[in-house]
């Protein structure tokens, strides 16, 4: 067994050395701060395992990582130990002592300072300046809360007090007026998004729409400006079990603000919410259930003359395969007029196209009415007397036509030059002063009237000048003929907003196929399937036009005002 004697030399309070010895066994001794080291040097400057001493019967060797130990004043990595050697491990010195019955004897003395009076760290490291994290946190918290919440709310409340009637203005109210632009800037920070273009006039005047705090925007601010807004359907119609849902609908539930500059309201699901089961909202609704255009829209209802009550219109639903008949009291043959070989006209043979008669209105939506004067008269001349081929009748009620004829023939009779023999017998005649007596005048007038009536009968009868286009019938009373009133439909789909102008790229016949139509009772309005060739519902489909409800229908199209339900005053509306 190899043993080493380790003697620790300490200094007592009186300055006398105290020796404490201990024997440790083993061939490999570790020197260090750690308590497991056989040579225990308790000082923070010493490494945990600072050096190793290999002990054998023939001698001892110390070794350590570079720069850790000095032997006899020289920095070494390892050294053979002989008696009298001084191993320096700051702050200790280990002397190799003469050995007796052990393999090695060491004396450990602490030469450096043991416990410095001041913390050496403070000499080297400056006192840390602590960042006031907590204070900065609170500061930021309250700054943000003040700027983003308290200030806008305070300014809003002040503005509200200022607006309240019959209350003395708070002190500093005049200052608020000056503050106003700043107040608006504070509130601008709350603005979640740009207003629609027409509402940008309110800028940051939030209170123009937003009333009491924590209350959803009411309708009153909207209706204050939009007083003439038509309602959707009269309140009385909302008698279904779910009618109240619509009755309590706020403007802002469809018209979302702060969502961008264009006020597009695509509210198909809002519409369909009621219209998928319309009887739930309005028990007596005339319309059918509807939803998405692609799948759920019923066939169109055309507005047509009611044959049972001429002069009134009814809406008739199109049905696949079932042809509808129009009762316009006009005869027209599209096939004849669109003859590819052309028509005989005063200007020679001419091929007619749709646009020769049908031109859109100024707003580009509906077609302008076809007029006799503009579209028909150049061929269908109203000349009535072969001897006066440039004289034409007015396209007017029968009475006016008859009166024109009487005027014409009376004038003709009266302005006819006298026969030569009669002139000879009239001695007092001077040019311009020829006078008929009463009976003679009556005779001439009666002859002229007879001729006028005969011509009228011809025009309505044999010659078919009027009856070519009109339904005419003979009556007892003067002027013996009557024309059935013409009721050409101008608006087939009054509840839809169809625009011809936006379909100008299409051929007319792709929707209105009249090439084979020989009667004016044929209805050439396309069925819904024709629209669906291009249009789909609200869900986009590749190569198709996305069309939600608002593409064709208007919500605010009722006959009363939203505000109070009173009847709308529409300029030029039929009574």
């Amino acid at each position, binding site marked *: 067994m190899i043993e080493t004697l380790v003697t620790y030399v300490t200094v007592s309070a009186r300055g006398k050395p105290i020796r404490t010895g201990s024997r440790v066994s083993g061939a490999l001794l570790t020197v260090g701060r750690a308590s497991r080291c056989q040579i225990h040097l308790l000082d923070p400057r010493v490494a945990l395992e600072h050096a190793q001493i290999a002990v054998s019967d023939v001698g001892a060797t110390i070794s350590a990582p570079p720069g850790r130990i000095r032997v006899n004043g020289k920095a070494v990595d390892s050294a053979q130990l002989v008696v009298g050697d001084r191993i320096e491990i700051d702050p200790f010195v280990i002397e190799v002592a003469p050995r007796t019955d052990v393999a090695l004897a060491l004396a450990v003395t602490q030469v450096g300072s043991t416990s410095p009076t001041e913390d050496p760290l403070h000499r080297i490291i400056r006192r840390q300046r602590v960042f006031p994290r907590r204070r*900065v946190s609170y500061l930021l918290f309250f700054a943000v809360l003040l700027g983003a919440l308290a200030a806008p709310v305070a300014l809003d409340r002040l503005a509200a007090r200022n607006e309240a009637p019959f209350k003395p203005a708070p002190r500093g109210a005049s200052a608020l007026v000056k503050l106003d632009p700043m107040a608006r800037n504070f509130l601008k920070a709350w603005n979640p998004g740009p207003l629609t273009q027409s509402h940008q006039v309110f800028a940051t005047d939030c209170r123009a729409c937003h009333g009491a705090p924590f209350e959803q925007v009411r309708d009153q601010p909207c209706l204050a400006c939009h007083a003439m807004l038509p309602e959707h359907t009269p309140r009385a119609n909302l008698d279904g079990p779910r009618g109240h849902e619509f009755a309590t609908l706020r403007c802002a539930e469809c018209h979302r603000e702060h969502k961008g500059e264009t006020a597009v309201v695509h509210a198909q699901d809002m519409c369909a919410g009621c219209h998928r089961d319309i009887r739930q909202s309005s028990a007596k609704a005339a319309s059918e259930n509807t939803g998405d255009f692609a799948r759920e829209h019923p066939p169109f209802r055309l507005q047509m003359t009611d044959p049972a009550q001429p002069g009134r219109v009814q809406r008739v639903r199109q049905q696949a395969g079932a042809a509808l008949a129009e009762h316009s009291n006009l005869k027209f043959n599209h096939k004849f007029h669109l003859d590819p070989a052309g028509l005989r006209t005063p200007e020679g043979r001419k091929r007619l196209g749709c646009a020769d008669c049908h031109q859109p209105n100024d707003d580009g939506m509906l077609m302008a009415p076809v007029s006799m004067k503009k579209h028909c008269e150049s061929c269908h001349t109203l000349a009535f007397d072969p001897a006066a081929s440039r004289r034409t009748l007015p396209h007017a009620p029968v009475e006016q036509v008859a009166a024109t004829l009487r005027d014409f023939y009376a004038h003709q009779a009266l302005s006819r030059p006298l026969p030569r023999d009669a002139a000879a017998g009239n001695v007092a005649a001077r040019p311009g002063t020829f006078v008929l007596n009463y009976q003679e005048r009556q005779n001439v007038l009666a002859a002229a009237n007879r001729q006028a009536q005969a011509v009228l009968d011809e025009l309505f009868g044999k010659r078919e000048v009027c009856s070519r286009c009109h339904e005419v019938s003979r009556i007892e009373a003067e002027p013996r003929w009557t024309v059935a009133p013409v009721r050409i439909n101008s608006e087939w789909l009054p509840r839809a907003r169809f625009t011809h102008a936006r379909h100008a790229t299409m051929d007319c016949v792709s929707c209105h196929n009249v090439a084979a139509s020989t009667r004016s009772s044929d209805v050439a309005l396309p069925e819904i399937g024709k629209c669906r060739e291009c249009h789909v519902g609200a869900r986009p489909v590749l190569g198709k036009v996305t069309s939600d409800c608002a593409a064709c229908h208007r919500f605010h199209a009722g006959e009363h005002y939203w505000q109070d339900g009173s009847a709308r005053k529409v300029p030029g509306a039929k009574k």
Partner: protein
Amino acid sequence: MRLHRSILAFEGGRYLKWALVVCAASIAAYAWHDPSSVYLRPYGGTALGYTLGTIGALLILWLLLLGIRRRSYASSLGTVQGWTSAHVYLGTSLLVVVSLHCGFEFGWNIHTLAYALMVAVILSGFACLFAYLRFPRFMTENLGDQTLQSLALKIVDIDRLCRKLSLELPDVAATAVERATKTRIGGGMLRELRAPFMPCPARAAAVQLRELGPTLNPEQVQINQQLVSELTRKSALLDRIRMDLRLKALLRLWLLFHVPLSFALLAAVIAHVVSVFYYW
């Protein structure tokens, strides 16, 4: 038992799974949810928007509670390690939840301010996580089996020795050594961060003394050599202290942003929620 376990791997990444579930559920709901067409596009005011907003706000409040929980040493409500793991993962999931809440709608207003603050808090949190996963190892490697205290004691000894040795040398050398013994490190956060890159007086003195060599007598040359080697040792020790200070400063740095910003975020979230319903 393993001595060290990353907070990221806590309980086999339990909170990673939680966070992934939260994100996946939010994304699925966002994809599935078909906001009423009056809204034109998804935003915070739809049913899903309110739901995601509520989840986000509650998450923010809970994330702030970590500051209280890690000081409540007596609390047995989960381990701080677990809380921190959940804090990291669920905090990151906020990026997804809140982005979907707002429907990617941004502007110059307090609502986007709240979002921007949240992103800033999360990014500073990432910096913190990076620092905590990386720097402690560097600190251990830097100090080895030493402590700042033991390094300082060694430096004090070297200083004493240097002062004694410099007495034998010309005044120029003594002044240089005196300056080197008065080296002080650190102070503010910035000084601590820059410490390793600042000029070291001990190293400068060593260079100066080496240049002094030819002017000295043989006896002084030997002392001078010893002084140079002591000063070089000191500068090496100082470098380790400097690096330790820098690493500690880096560990603290993120908190200077993370904590104050998260308080600003709390205020912005309160302002956001109140303002939205104030002007409903």
